[in-house]
């Protein structure tokens, strides 16, 4: 009995050997690195730091983390490179669904979709991370570079995003966010702050994007009511890269090339000590939601029962107006010199104004509930150099444009600093 079973065992292993010798992997090292990193992330314990060596490592599949309290760090954003060129599985590069996560000193390149996605995390730090599509602006690039969504207590600092077909650094449906000392270039949108509450964005540079920074709310997302955003000491300069977002990405395809900053359907935004310069369509664009989505198309709907059901209630939680916006002490100049005539709205406006647009462009849309006093939206613009202004009276079909800044030279109470645990720890008693 014993002899027979031993014989069977050795025979079986011989058989297995034959079977396995036929299937070798094409690039064992890349596959091994990818597999071992994924295994380390799965088997990580809270408090673990996972160190990645110098080198360029190829991935064909999303790498993900779900363990709380993990630090993933390389040897530098130009030394440790995770390359997803030719990715076949999963859209994201690195996907994180965990709290207390730190990622630093590495690069994520050429992902099929978003480079770094962080979903639903608390206490998230992204530090000295570079995300990039190395072929430069291209409509096939992934939409987002750094993409935290539904996060709380988020710090993105000293990072770089290049080539995103939507936004280089995006923050969505989050609260308590600090974005500082980042550089975004050659993206469609440099920064996007969407449906997010309590944000400090400072000492960032957005240049050579289609648009420098958007601060806005959109309907039909689970988290509504983004507000309280401070933008200071940033440079939003020379964002004139032709819009390369594919139509498939939706509204971002219609972002005018040469937009410094846009503020859409949000309240409590304070913008100060920034340089917003040389953005060829407009340095600052302040608008109601329906000024940028096609309101007429919505009204012209072939009112079937289903369509009515959809549009009649709309999203009742959504508030499309802009209010309580305070721009002060900014250096704003040189904008609007060659507006993006690709867009009919922009073209109509710039044609009416002799081919140029002012530094500030405001649609003047106000909620009738605010009453009929002037500037009932409380758009306050003060000490912004020689910045020019136009309220183009969208509601009145541009019949009563306002160039005069006086009704808008008001001030609002400063917004409070955003406090997150990451910063309290690294700079006790900071400003």
């Amino acid at each position: 009995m014993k002899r027979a079973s031993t014989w069977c065992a050795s025979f079986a292993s011989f058989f297995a050997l034959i079977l396995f010798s036929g299937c070798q992997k094409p690039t064992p090292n890349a596959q091994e690195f990818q597999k071992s990193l994924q295994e380390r992330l799965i088997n990580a314990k809270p408090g673990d730091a996972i160190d990645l060596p110098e080198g360029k490592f190829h991935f064909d599949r999303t790498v993900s983390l779900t363990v709380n309290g993990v630090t993933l760090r390389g040897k530098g954003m130009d030394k440790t490179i995770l390359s997803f060129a030719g990715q076949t599985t999963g859209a994201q590069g690195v996907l994180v669904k965990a709290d207390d996560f730190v990622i630093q000193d590495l690069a994520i390149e050429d992902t099929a979709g978003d480079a770094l996605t962080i979903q639903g995390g608390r206490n998230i730090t992204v530090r000295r991370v570079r995300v990039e599509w190395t072929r430069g602006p291209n409509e096939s690039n992934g939409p987002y570079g750094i993409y935290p969504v539904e996060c709380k207590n988020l710090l993105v600092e000293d990072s770089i995003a290049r080539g995103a077909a939507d936004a280089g650094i995006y923050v969505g449906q989050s609260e308590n966010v600090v974005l500082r000392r980042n550089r975004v270039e050659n993206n469609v949108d440099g920064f996007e702050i969407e449906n997010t509450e309590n944000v400090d964005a400072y000492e960032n540079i957005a240049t050579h994007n289609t648009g420098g920074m958007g601060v806005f709310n959109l309907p039909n997302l689970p988290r509504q009511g983004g507000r309280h955003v401070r933008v200071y000491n940033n440079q939003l300069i020379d964002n004139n890269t032709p819009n390369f977002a594919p139509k498939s990405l939706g509204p971002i395809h219609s972002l005018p090339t040469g937009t410094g900053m846009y503020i859409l359907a949000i309240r409590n935004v304070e913008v100060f000590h920034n340089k917003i310069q040389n953005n060829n369509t407009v340095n600052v664009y302040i608008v109601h939601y329906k000024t940028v989505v096609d309101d007429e198309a919505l009204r012209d709907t072939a009112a079937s029962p289903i369509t009515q059901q959809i549009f009649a209630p709309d999203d009742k939680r959504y508030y499309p107006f802009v209010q309580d916006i305070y721009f002060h002490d900014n250096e704003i100049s040189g904008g609007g010199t060659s507006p993006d005539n690709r867009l009919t709205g922009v073209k109509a406006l710039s044609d009416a104004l002799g081919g140029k647009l002012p530094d500030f462009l405001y649609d003047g849309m106000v909620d009738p509930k605010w009453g009929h006093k002037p500037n009932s939206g409380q758009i306050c613009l003060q000490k912004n150099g020689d910045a020019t202004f136009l309220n183009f009276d969208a509601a009145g079909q541009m019949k009563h444009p306002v160039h005069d800044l006086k009704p808008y030279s008001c001030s609002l109470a400063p917004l409070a600093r955003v406090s997150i645990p990451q910063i309290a720890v690294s700079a006790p008693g900071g400003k």
Partner: protein
Amino acid sequence: MIPRSARRRVARLALFCAGIVAVIYCGCSSQRAVNARVEEPFPKKLSDWHLFAATSKALQPNNGVVPYDLNTPLFSDYASKYRFVWMPPGTSAQYRDDSAFEFPVGTILVKTFAFPVDGHPTERLVETRLLVRTKSEWKPLSYIWNDAQSEASLETVPDPVKIRFTSASGKRHEFTYVIPNANECHECHDNQKMLLPIGPKARNLNKDYAYSSGTENQLEHFARIGYLQGLPAPAARPRSAKWDDPQTGSLDDRARAYLDSNCAHCHQPGGQAGYTGVDFRSTQHEVAQQGLCKSPNSAGAVGALSFDLVPGHPDDSILIYRLESTAPKVSMPALSRDVVHEEGVKLLRDWIASLPGGCPASR
């Protein structure tokens, strides 16, 4: 390659070995109970769970390991799926109307994925996934079958597998079957960061099954053998349509059942794609929540299209565009679909074409 004569010897020898193994096991193992592990470490070999008869390629279940199937399952690259459930003796699941049942600690949900092999009567077993209800949570475990089909081993990051076969209808399939890693299990199974079973819901289990003891409604079978408590009267039990059987529901019913089983695990509040605002659960009836005339908000590639779902116009609907793609940033579901489910897409095309109305300025 092995010469033909050698192959025959191999076959004879294999039979002989199997015979020996059977002899060894027959004395002690046929009544050997399922190995109820509720904490780490979990068995490295599938056989160590004792869910199936030791040498059986046919997944002959052990005592108490009960097979089941679903009215409308998740499409998984045309894989055949064999599902079983086991619960510790004396325990039972609590009936739930909408969500998966509340299963007791120790429960093992077992799903084996298999594909046809050209020229072979039997399928190739690729992986067996377990969901184990531990003391604190559901634990997903993936066991990958060896080429000899004699054993499956626990892996956290399984390698992809090349699949090639011609279906009964003559369609050729060649693709790389990507097996989800332990993290990717969470992509579909997590809700509010808690991993949950997806399939075993009342509406999907409410169907007949041909047990060895005879055909019986699965819910009633579970209740009769003590695996289910709280089963309401037949009229109060929800029943999902079978997506491919018009006898079981209208086009609308079957399309909603398909969306429920293939999309709603992510597209519901608290799911992986909850942030999109789209909710495909068949239990919710807000038409605006199913993507009708809804612009996509932040994520994904959508072709030159404006809305998730345009009534009457499947070709203008992002939903169809993404189901017909296998490209990484376009395809939906984002995981575990490496080929297009042509029959499923046809169902949804027919359904969208049947919906009245239109969307503003849709192309």
